[in-house]
């Protein structure tokens, strides 16, 4: 069952991109803040979706990369006066190193054991950072870069990782690796016997996700100014990403985008309601899962075949 892709998809995507890129011109400061949060969460959610939705690597330890990337940025800027953009990239690279170390241990596990392995790594990092004098224990660090960026610059950095994450996922999925990944997710044994290099493909995705997650965290903490181990390495991050991706539609490229839009707007509205905000968030999640078990975009795709960015390739005889 192959459907023609949505005709005007590049027009729509280009329009959305243009609208986002010109927010500093047409939007108020508040829209800029929302746009920034949106782009950052899109990047984080795309990476979790790449791991869990496409590669079958259920990660509950994304906060390890968020905290590690954030702390690398905070330490290099505040202690060594490194340029803020360089330090954000350094955070991404350090996250890749961390992912390499982690992979030695957790790539021997699969399924739920892999998930627990990633989570344990994040908890170890939490304990380590909160008992490390160099980063002032649980006190937290104030991020004081030598060149404090303006809100607009932070926004463009966020837009870069947001769009970058989207393009990266799209390119990976359209490549040979992507085909292998989806085959692997659906049936690992069969795909291995068909010649898919399972270990290398998984490791590749894991490292890419670590880099983008670490970089995104750096930008996030440049905005936040204050980083503290109990929140930087908190499970909350992954819980939010799971919420975003499940609501939006796991295993679709558009899903995390729609999920992020809902999450960012909801958390803004609900922060005024104090006690009941978390309750409402939970109720909304349950309602959406009941009505649309494949997430919003997953269900729309199933019902109408509407897709903006399809990782599927058409057979040559099909007209574009």
């Amino acid at each position: 069952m192959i459907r023609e892709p949505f005709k005007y998809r590049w027009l729509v995507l280009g329009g959305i991109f243009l609208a986002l890129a010109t927010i500093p011109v047409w939007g108020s400061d508040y829209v800029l803040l929302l746009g920034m949060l949106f782009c950052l969460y899109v990047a984080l959610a795309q990476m979790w979706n790449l791991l869990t939705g496409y590669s079958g690597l259920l990660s509950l330890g994304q906060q390890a990369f968020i905290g590690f990337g954030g702390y690398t940025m905070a330490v290099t800027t505040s202690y060594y006066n490194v340029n803020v953009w360089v330090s954000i990239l350094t955070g991404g690279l350090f996250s890749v190193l961390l992912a390499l170390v982690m992979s030695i241990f957790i790539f021997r596990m699969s399924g739920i054991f892999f998930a627990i392995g990633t989570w344990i790594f994040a908890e170890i990092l939490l304990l380590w950072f909160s008992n490390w004098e160099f980063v002032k224990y649980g006190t937290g660090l104030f991020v004081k870069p030598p060149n404090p960026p303006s809100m607009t610059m932070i926004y463009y950095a966020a837009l870069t990782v947001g769009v970058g994450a989207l393009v990266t996922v799209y390119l990976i999925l359209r490549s040979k690796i992507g085909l292998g990944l989806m085959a692997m997710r659906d049936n690992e044994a069969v795909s291995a016997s068909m010649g898919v290099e399972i270990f290398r493909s998984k490791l590749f995705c894991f490292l890419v996700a670590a880099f983008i997650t670490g970089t995104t965290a750096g930008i996030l903490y440049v905005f936040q100014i204050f980083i503290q181990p109990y929140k930087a390495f908190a499970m909350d991050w992954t819980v939010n990403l799971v919420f975003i991706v499940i609501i939006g539609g796991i295993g679709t490229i558009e899903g995390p985008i729609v999920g992020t839009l809902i999450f960012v707007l909801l958390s803004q509205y609900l922060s005024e309601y104090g006690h009941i905000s978390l309750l409402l968030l939970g109720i909304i999640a349950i309602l959406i899962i009941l009505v649309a078990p494949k997430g919003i975009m997953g269900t729309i795709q199933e019902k109408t075949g509407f897709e903006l960015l399809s990782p599927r390739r058409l057979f040559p005889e099909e007209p574009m």
Partner: protein
Amino acid sequence: MDKKKGTKNLAKMNRREFVKKSAVTAGSVIAASNLPGFIGPARAATRDHILIGRPNPSTGPLADFGAGTPWADDIAVNEINKAGGIFIKELGKKLPIKIKTVDTQSNPTKAAEVASQLILKDKVDLMLFYHTPDTVNPVSSICERFKVPAISLDSPLEPWLEGGPYKWAFHAFWSVEKDIVPVYTGIWDQVETNKKVGILMANDPDGVAWSKVFKEVGAQKGYELFDKGRFPYGLQDFSPFINDWKENNVEILLANLIPPDFITAWRQCQRLGFKPKVATVGKAVLFPSVCEALGGDLAKGISTEVWWSPHHPFKSSLSGVSAQQFCDRWTQETSKIWTQPLGFKYAGYEVAYDALTRAASLDKDAIREAIAQTDIDTIVGKIKFNDQNYARTPLVGGQWNKGEKFPWEIKITFNDQFPNIPKTGEVFSM
């Protein structure tokens, strides 16, 4: 197959369809109603009020601190608005103040996020916030970034100064080194002990700062300190600490931790037979609700810092009401005993009113300048900011005992630094 289903659904809307459709409708209405605010400058040309942002820890482990906020806010706002509010030169008229309270969930990351929202979406003219470094540090930083005047109280000076130098944020409270140390060691000195102190402090800004200062100063004063390190929030087993103190015959407990952790730790102390002669506990036993939660007589004799009480000889600059009268009103309206943050919640508005009145402007620079010049006697004492943007408020020591009117009442037992705040009891050995 899909098509068939579609036509069938057109004929009659089933429950599931109805839920979906109403959700979509509700979503679009909410989105549409906010659209105008998203585009261009949101500020209307005419202003009919001054907006003060109030990030408050309403939920989470700091909820006890945030509890009296709506009550104190209402009183202060009503007093300020009774005479029409604050005169603004640009408009040639008086504007009432309005507040917008948002919940930080006791989470520094969330606090930074809601503070940004208050500044960028609601365009607050001034930020007013209190209660521990988890709230005060991130919000101060955000106000610095967006150049919004900020007044904060109720969080020790040292962790706050880490984030400086500040231009837009101003802070008033006591210092760990200059105030807490003399009060606590002063209380220790009044009881005959072997001068052995066990440290129990959480791994947070307060715990890290306190343990460092106490280890330096305590040793100089001839106290021997036993420290097994910082522990994370929510620890369930304190026996390694307690056994260490028992082995070393510790007679003084020095702690700083959040209330739920202290309840766990102190009950385990009793169970394992650790009974110090003096227990000075920061942050956790500021509230009578915690003493009650401990159960039995467990709270009896625990000492803590007292930053404000009905016995403090200060009065409101807004209404002339004394600390005692203010607390009486709280008890009358809520049937609860006073708590220490109450005065500070109110005092923030005194500083804000004073500064806004002198600025007589909505210009942020003018407001900032006016806050810097603050020199006012409030319900928590004199507040005058120095060139590092902070002011020190007085600190005395107190000890919990069974009360007459309420189950637990705190008596002021140490006032060497501020003798104008009267003692209401004497230190007793536990």
